[in-house]
């Protein structure tokens, strides 16, 4: 399936397929097995929502194209083009046509963008280390549902799973992709969530950069956790995309927010999107994905 994806991409965007092939050379057999399994799952999922595999590939290439233009703007201005949630809502979240391809395209990035896959691998490594303490699992802004799907595989069958998202179309997509009746899907603005101190584990991947006040969001997440509860947080630096609002220039910007919102960083990792020497990565402000397991102060 992965080979089929690459061939389809190569027929439409040779430059990008060259990058993907170079990235995949550095990844092991496990990646190829998992990518094949993932794209097989996607094929069935796409069919269940009235799409097909080619739609997924085209959606992914549209995301690549959008991101390229955002990167050009970012290189010129040093800022994300989206300035507010209102901007993002108008451009993306309230626009079903954009949301549709964007969610499908982002799903593909989880395996086609090496640094995204590496963060997913990190999640798979760290979650089981804490699984015996997890019985009430919340995912905030889960989007397509991939991380929730992975968590379900790794946690006890009696775990309560909940996904809260402000986007109905994201919830709908996640419901189809995750395909597990144990999950409670809640269409809600997380700031209105009343279950203070209820959850023992919260995952919030790639949400902080989508909000105007990421510190406030982390404080809200803190309120929802029980004392000593854990969270898995990811956020990118220097990653212009069509709906990114808050620019983190370095991982320290993200660490600062985590610590100011009442968390201790237990384990962390950061992965760049390109394989350049560190001097070039910093000079060109190459996107980086930061991920951490954090613990709420007791």
């Amino acid at each position, binding site marked *: 399936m992965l080979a089929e994806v690459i061939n389809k991409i190569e027929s439409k965007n040779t430059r990008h397929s060259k990058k993907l092939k170079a990235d995949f050379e550095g990844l092991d057999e496990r990646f190829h097995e998992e990518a094949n399994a993932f794209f097989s799952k996607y094929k069935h999922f796409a069919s269940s929502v009235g799409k097909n595999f080619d739609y997924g590939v085209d959606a992914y290439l549209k995301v690549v194209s959008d991101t390229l233009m955002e990167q*050009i703007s970012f290189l010129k201005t040093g800022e994300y083009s989206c300035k507010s949630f209102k901007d993002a809502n108008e451009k993306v979240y309230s626009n079903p046509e954009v949301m549709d391809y964007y969610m499908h395209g982002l799903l593909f990035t989880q395996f086609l963008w090496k640094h995204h896959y590496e963060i997913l691998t990190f999640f798979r490594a760290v979650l089981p280390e804490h699984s015996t303490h997890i019985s009430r699992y919340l995912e905030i802004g889960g989007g397509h549902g991939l991380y929730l799907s992975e968590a379900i595989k790794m946690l006890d069958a009696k775990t309560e799973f909940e996904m809260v998202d402000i986007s109905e179309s994201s919830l709908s997509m996640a419901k189809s992709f995750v395909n597990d009746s144990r999950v409670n899907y809640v269409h809600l603005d997380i700031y209105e969530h009343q279950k203070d101190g209820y959850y023992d584990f919260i995952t919030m991947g790639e949400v902080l950069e989508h909000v105007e006040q990421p510190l406030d969001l982390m404080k809200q997440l803190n309120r929802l956790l029980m004392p000593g509860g854990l969270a898995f947080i990811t956020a990118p630096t220097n990653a212009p995309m069509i709906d990114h609002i808050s620019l983190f220039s370095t991982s320290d910007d993200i660490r600062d927010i985590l610590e100011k919102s009442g968390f201790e960083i237990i384990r962390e990792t950061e992965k760049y999107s390109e394989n350049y020497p560190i001097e070039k990565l910093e000079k060109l402000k190459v996107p980086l994905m930061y991920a951490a397991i954090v613990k709420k102060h007791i």
Partner: protein
Amino acid sequence: MNETEVLDILAETLKSIFDTDDISISKEMTANDVEGWDSFAHIQIIVSLEGEFGIKFTSAEVEGLNNIGEIVDAICSKLS
């Protein structure tokens, strides 16, 4: 500005971005012919050319300009 002048500026742009004088530019040259001409380099080239010539490429052009000749033609078209 004529095609030769555009080509000369393009050559200087590539030499600057790839930090080498060892680029012999031709209209048939593609990204495959230049080591390190990946997506990031492509973005740098586009931004540099837009600044140098005071033009703006569309997303279709950014992705679809496959060789030096096509880039030169696009620039000349925008300048005319």
